[in-house]
């Protein structure tokens, strides 16, 4: 097990490094006169040149990247060119917001999807049809549209939740709930649809396997077969899909954060990328890449725990 984890960790480090190189290069391709963009249309050329020199933008690209990389290795991600805030502070404060809604959405998606998927596979008939139908709808309607409807109904008309902004859990747990509920629901619907389909497929597939027939022939109840054996086998693929969903939700969170004006990582990434705030974009990219690597590793471990066959491969 340990060599397996170490191997995955090593490849993760290489992946993060490669991503940092690509991201830096792409930012420069789209770059242009960043000092002018920071200062806007009022600034004279002299001030713009001074700003560029202050930020090291007059250095060759490789020098700039190398400077960034060495300080990043030392744990210093620099300061935002547009807000002066430490990138580490900026990213970590926003990570909590994004993880709040993405983890929340993943948990809800997992629970609802497993219930719906198993129900559909076990019962079949009209229940299956309804679940299938709802899944397709949930899959087809874009998340931002759901978010807009949710704001209109639950925040503006009913006044139950907040339409904009984020309340940290530490300052008010109930405020936190009112600020994250709608974003979480908006995010989870698409994921529920996808994962429910996957669970339904896996359970149906498992139910048709020989071992189920063997178990049944021994007189085990259907419930026992499903919950003790089938789910264990169906759980692997479902977990993999859930992991992909989690990573996808990190992306989908960008739009939801924009609509709800949540100070999350996605919103930070959009602002920083649009502005050309390279230290912040790099910070977001690196932290996201690390999260993706960790999630994949955890999923692999979970699958290995669920199914010993994975450990051998």
């Amino acid at each position: 097990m340990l060599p397996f984890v170490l191997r995955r960790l090593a490849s993760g480090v290489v992946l993060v490094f490669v991503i940092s190189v690509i991201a830096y290069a792409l930012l420069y391709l789209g770059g242009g006169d960043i000092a002018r963009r920071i200062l806007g249309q009022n600034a004279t050329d002299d001030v713009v040149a001074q700003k560029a020199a202050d930020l090291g933008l007059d250095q060759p690209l490789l020098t700039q990247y190398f400077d960034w990389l060495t300080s990043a290795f030392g744990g210093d991600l620099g300061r935002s060119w547009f807000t002066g805030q430490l990138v580490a502070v900026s990213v970590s404060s926003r990570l909590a917001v994004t993880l709040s809604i993405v983890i929340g959405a993943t948990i809800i998606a997992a629970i609802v999807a497993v219930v719906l998927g198993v129900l559909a596979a076990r019962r079949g008939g009209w229940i299956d049809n309804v679940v299938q139908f709802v899944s397709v709808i949930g899959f087809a309607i874009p998340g931002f549209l759901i978010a807009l409807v949710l704001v209109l109904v639950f925040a503006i008309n009913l006044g139950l939740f907040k339409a904009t902004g984020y309340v940290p859990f530490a300052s008010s747990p109930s405020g936190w709930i009112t600020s994250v509920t709608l974003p979480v629901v908006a995010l989870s619907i698409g994921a529920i649809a996808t994962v429910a389909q996957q669970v339904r497929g896996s359970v149906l597939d498992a139910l048709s396997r020989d071992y189920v027939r063997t178990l049944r022939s021994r007189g085990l109840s259907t419930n026992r077969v499903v919950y003790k054996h089938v789910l264990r086998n169906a759980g692997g693929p479902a977990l993999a899909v859930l992991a992909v969903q989690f990573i996808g939700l990190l992306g989908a969170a960008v739009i939801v954060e924009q609509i709800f004006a949540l100070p999350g990582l996605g919103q930070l990434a959009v602002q920083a990328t649009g502005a050309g705030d390279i230290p912040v974009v790099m910070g977001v990219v690196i932290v996201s890449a690390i999260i993706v690597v960790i999630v994949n590793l955890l999923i692999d471990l979970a699958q290995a725990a669920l199914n010993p066959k994975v450990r051998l491969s």
Partner: protein
Amino acid sequence: MLRWRTATAAVAITAALALSSCAADTGSTQGGGGTLTLGAIVAPTTFDPAGSEWGNRAPFYQAVYDTLLLATSEGEIEPFLAESFEYNDDNTVLTLTIRDDVTFTDGSKLDADVVKQNLERFQTGTSPDAGYFAGITSVEAPDATTVVITLAAPDPAMLNYLTRDPGLIASAEALADPDSLATDPVGSGPYVLDTAATVTGTSYTYTKNPDYWNPDLQHYDTLTINVLADATAGLNAIKAGEVNGIKLASNDNLAEVEGAGWTVNANELDFQGLLLLDRAGTMSEPLSDVRVRQAINYAFDREALLTALQSDHGTVTGQVFPESSPAFDPALDERYPYDPEKAKDLLAEAGYADGFTLSMPSSTVLGSTTYTLLSQQLADIGITAEYTDPGNNFIADLLAPKFPASFMALEQNPDWQLIQFMIAPNSVFNPFKYADPQVDEYLAQIQAGDEATQAEVAKQLNEYIVEQAWFAPFYRVQNSVPTDANTSVEMMPTNVYPAIYDFQPKG
């Protein structure tokens, strides 16, 4: 089985929390009770005065810092941290008397030396407006309450500059640590930034400065400014009552805003139109002929453009000076009525009967409709518009200069500031450095003249610029800052965002 039990418990807890929160939390997040919550469309890039900006970012700075002079909503310049100010006879030495009863929020005292340090830092700093101080040759602090600013030549905009970003004064101790100052401002302003409750770039919370020297300006106990760049988020915040006042990114939803019981406060600051920058014809030969530039002015149906692009939220104009300026002349707005035939005649006279091609930058920010309409109206008189989208480099390319003309929105500042911004040979929005002896003559008179002369000559300058068709302005755009039923505000004649002191609870 443990997994399932945990999951069930989690659901139950979540549901319970959600239900209890519905009962307890509704409405308590909104303002009232001494809290003012504002919406802005951009965040400040830094809280260090040496890197500061004004415009939409003004309220973030005003909350924590005082300026040397105060711009009022009546358009006057009044004493503030400087309790008096006086020019010498030839307007090259400005003497400020600094208040002696002001304490910064770190406990240190305001004196002339702190002011001197701040002014010098602004001059050499990287604020977009650092150029405002380019003409200052020295700043002296002969005693604790006197600051003497010496200028290379008279600058009629200097007093106005001191009412905005160049006039912001931070504590001397804080200046010693600029990294910290960027996110943790220390000033003498009516409020103190609560860094713990602030999410940089998104939401800024301020608490009342208990020792403020000018408590008349403190109308609230707490001030929160939320950055709501997205137009939908802004509208939602209005409808959900999550702000008391907000600067709108566009005028698209004014009916809905008024429908929600809000008052739309408005002024007009920016003009939109074509900048005909290459007046010497170095890049586009035809533009050097004044008849061609006039023809372009005749080509546009300004009323129709205002309706199509701004839903009539604004006023048609033909000049770059604002209505509040002494240079403004309503007759100039009628100088170039929509007359494509006349435009074609002028082009033919200038030798361009077959028209020509004009290359201009385009930007997705301004929407494609704008550029399609401009193309059509120019095509009607035989000019082919050729657009290039420089993306994020729009401003940089425009100022490089890489285009002879462009559609643009520019701020209409007070006279001398406007001249320094878009008319003078060395101004930012005169990227070809175009100079005209007649204009130079007017500028010299305005710079050296007394107030009456300045007003008179500015009028002549304005008329000349319109006659020479340096620009083809279309309209001034309405700038909207709606407030809710409990809040009132006075708009500033010279800034897009009202002063935070001018937001008041409705009694």
